[in-house]
């Protein structure tokens, strides 16, 4: 994934400026930054949900703006709160998503439901779900297409301890066995530290990168914020 010179400015002055970022196949990259730093904007631009003012995004060598459908085919994403057609069950929701991809079977749907711990609730309406269960569904909807790149924006929001452990285990297993790339934004710094091998700090709309090392991530983050404030 290659982002070149990406800028997106909102009328309130917030946004991201001139971002260059390259993420390689199989990496798990954590995006960190304070509220309003532009993490969600970056992920929305990266997945084509928002058009950047300037700059370019290439996924698997394909320009997302000129060839959206082909570029986004191998991407699964959960950006913002999990959304679903709430009058339907998670199974039907996933079935609807699966129609847009080729080669996804009912067995794949069952497997994703199992991975996210939703099998006992597969026929219940999503409107009856708690926030954490909806979040689990959001993760299931990102996994269902067997993507090569998974973008997760605050995936741990609303998850209970079981959900958190299950998510961590799922990400680690998928990454280990399928070489899938993950881009994860979160405020849970310790969670990211356990999962990611590279970090992207997004502060005041600008990025700086950090490879996982011996120094605690929290210390690195505090130092980066202090430098940015100065």
């Amino acid at each position: 994934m290659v982002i070149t010179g990406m800028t997106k400015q909102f009328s309130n002055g917030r946004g991201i400026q001139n971002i260059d970022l390259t993420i390689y196949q199989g990496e798990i990259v954590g995006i960190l930054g304070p509220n309003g730093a532009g993490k969600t904007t970056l992920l929305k631009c990266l997945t084509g949900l928002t058009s950047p003012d300037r700059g370019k995004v290439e996924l698997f060598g394909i320009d997302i703006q000129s060839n959206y459908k082909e570029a986004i085919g191998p991407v699964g994403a959960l950006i913002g709160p999990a959304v679903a057609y709430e009058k339907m069950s998670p199974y039907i929701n996933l079935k609807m998503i699966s129609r847009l991809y080729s080669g996804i079977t009912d067995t794949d749907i069952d497997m994703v439901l199992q991975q996210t711990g939703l099998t006992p609730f597969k026929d219940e309406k999503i409107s009856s779900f708690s926030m954490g269960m909806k979040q689990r569904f959001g993760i299931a909807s990102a996994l269902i297409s067997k993507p090569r790149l998974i973008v997760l924006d605050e995936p741990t929001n609303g998850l209970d301890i079981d959900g958190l452990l299950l998510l961590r285990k799922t990400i680690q297993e998928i990454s280990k066995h399928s070489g899938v790339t993950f881009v994860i934004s979160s405020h849970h710094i310790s969670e990211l530290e356990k999962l990611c091998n590279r970090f992207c700090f997004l502060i005041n709309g600008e990025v700086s990168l950090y490879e996982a090392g011996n120094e605690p991530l929290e210390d690195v983050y505090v130092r980066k914020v202090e430098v940015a404030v100065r």
Partner: protein
Amino acid sequence: MNTIKANTFNEIQKLLTKKVTKLFLLSTILVPVLTKLLVNHLFLIDWVALPTENINFTLLDLFITILIPLFIFIAATDLFTGEGERGTLFQVRPIRRIELFLTKVIAISVLCLFILLLEWLAVMISSAVFDKAFDIADIPSSVGAFIVSWFPIIVLTAFAVMLALFVHSSVLAISGMIVLYLFMMFIPYVLPGSLYLLPSTYLDWYMQWLSDVSFRWIIQTVTYLCSSFALFFSIGYYMFNRKEA
């Protein structure tokens, strides 16, 4: 599965899950049956003298001028404004915006055709069962009337979708559409010259097809319907494409 086909199927499934769609489908069957029952067996004895076709076309008028427009407004509001509110309108899926927009319009239009055909079937069966004056020779003209009625309905769908994209609130969208539709129905009484410029005027164009239809009229009306559809569809897509998740 082809993306257009797959997403049209998805959009239809979403609409069919809604209680209001089920209610419309139920009324499509019940209204003709109950009307025929009332006309023939209860208190409207004088109506029995009416040719059965007149009652059938009165039922068609009821659907194409009131019930189907109402269904279109609800469906367009739900698939566009409502999904915008709920955050389900744009998701990270391998489907282009034009395909997403098109499939939503197709889904509403296909369900309208289904409602029309279901109504025709209900009318025909209830006519055969209840009407003393039922004549099998009336079937070709009635099926033709129901099918041609679909074309102005597609134009109204594009119009409703365009309106749905101008607002961010479902309540505002549905109430705005109803008020505008009522305005379009009544404005010709005040400004007769506006009659032929309004898409609502052509909803009952099947009546023209039943009488002696001139080639000139066909060209004029079809051109108007096609250009109106192109205009509403293009503006609607322009608005849709500008939206951000």
